[in-house]
């Protein structure tokens, strides 16, 4: 199924699903309102999804868990976390995080 046709269909399905998610409440005009239970659940979507995507990038190295201080991505993420909390700036977080990663990689033996 991972052919060109499959790719086209998957792209379309993902695009449609994403559009419908964004359109959901806008579509309803005056009729649709967000119930308190659903609203409470949706609140946890951003932290859960973002943390799920971050964790393996930071804590895994060569397909294995690496919680040691010798993990350059762990060092860079820790520094970036402080910058994110202090400045709330996406640009600064990326900039400082990347520079930290390069320095850590250089100091720790240039692991990619």
């Amino acid at each position, binding site marked *: 199924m991972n052919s060109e046709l499959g790719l086209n269909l998957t792209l379309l399905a993902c695009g449609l699903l994403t*559009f419908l998610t964004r359109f959901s409440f806008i579509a309803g005009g005056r009729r649709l309102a967000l119930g308190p239970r659903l609203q409470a659940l949706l609140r*946890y*979507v951003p*932290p859960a999804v973002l943390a799920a995507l971050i964790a393996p990038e930071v804590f895994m190295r060569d397909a294995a868990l690496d919680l040691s201080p010798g993990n350059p991505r762990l060092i860079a993420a820790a520094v970036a976390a402080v910058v994110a909390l202090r400045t709330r700036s996406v640009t600064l977080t990326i900039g400082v995080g990347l520079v930290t990663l390069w320095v850590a990689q250089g100091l720790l033996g240039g692991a990619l």
Partner: protein
Amino acid sequence: MTAPAEFGAHEASARAEFVAGVKAELPLLLGVVPFGLIFGVLGLAAGLPAWAVIAMSSVVFGGSSQVVFAQLWGAQVPPAVITATVGVVNLRHALYSASVAQYLRDLPLRWRVLLAYLLTDEAYAAAIPRFAQGPATPARHWFLFGTGFTLWASWQVSTVVGVLMGAAIPAAWSLDFSIALTFIALLLPGIRRRSELVAALVAGAVALAAQGLPHKLWIIAAAVAGIAAGAASRRLDKAVHHEQ
């Protein structure tokens, strides 16, 4: 003779709202443009053809979900699982939809379709102060159109540039890590309650523990576990503000 004058006034305020929206979006592009470049590079590296990488930026138009799509495609994950995972990653847009719906409810359908299509993290973030605090004028939706269109255009251009640069960026630069850094910048300042912290910690832990699941189902497993854990720990949110 009053009708043309009113029409002219509406056009002028629509243009002013649009320009104000464009200006409000510009600072956010500093984070968006590198992200688009990296998506272009990563998409090719994951084995997607150039046309698909470029098409995805307009068909799906959601940065983090596009990166996930590319990673899953490269890992030969079945299309149904890719679609479900993209759906979960973009589920937060339902929050934005619910939030702006009250300001758009009197617009014609074509406007609501267009603005829903353009409703991304950054377009929403830049436009919501205008809706929530600005005057309720008939042309104010042009502000959201200004933020959304600016983001859309920059995203398309930066994706194409990323595809063209492609292999010219050495892997040793580890630019792919800037995507995780973007998520860190979005995640941490947004956590204001203990239950949200619980949701993030549980999702992160499950993402690591469930890496062995087939088809990269760990993304969905971690998201569902995090959401459930957050909802279950709501009673922790008594005397709170600005947890880290």
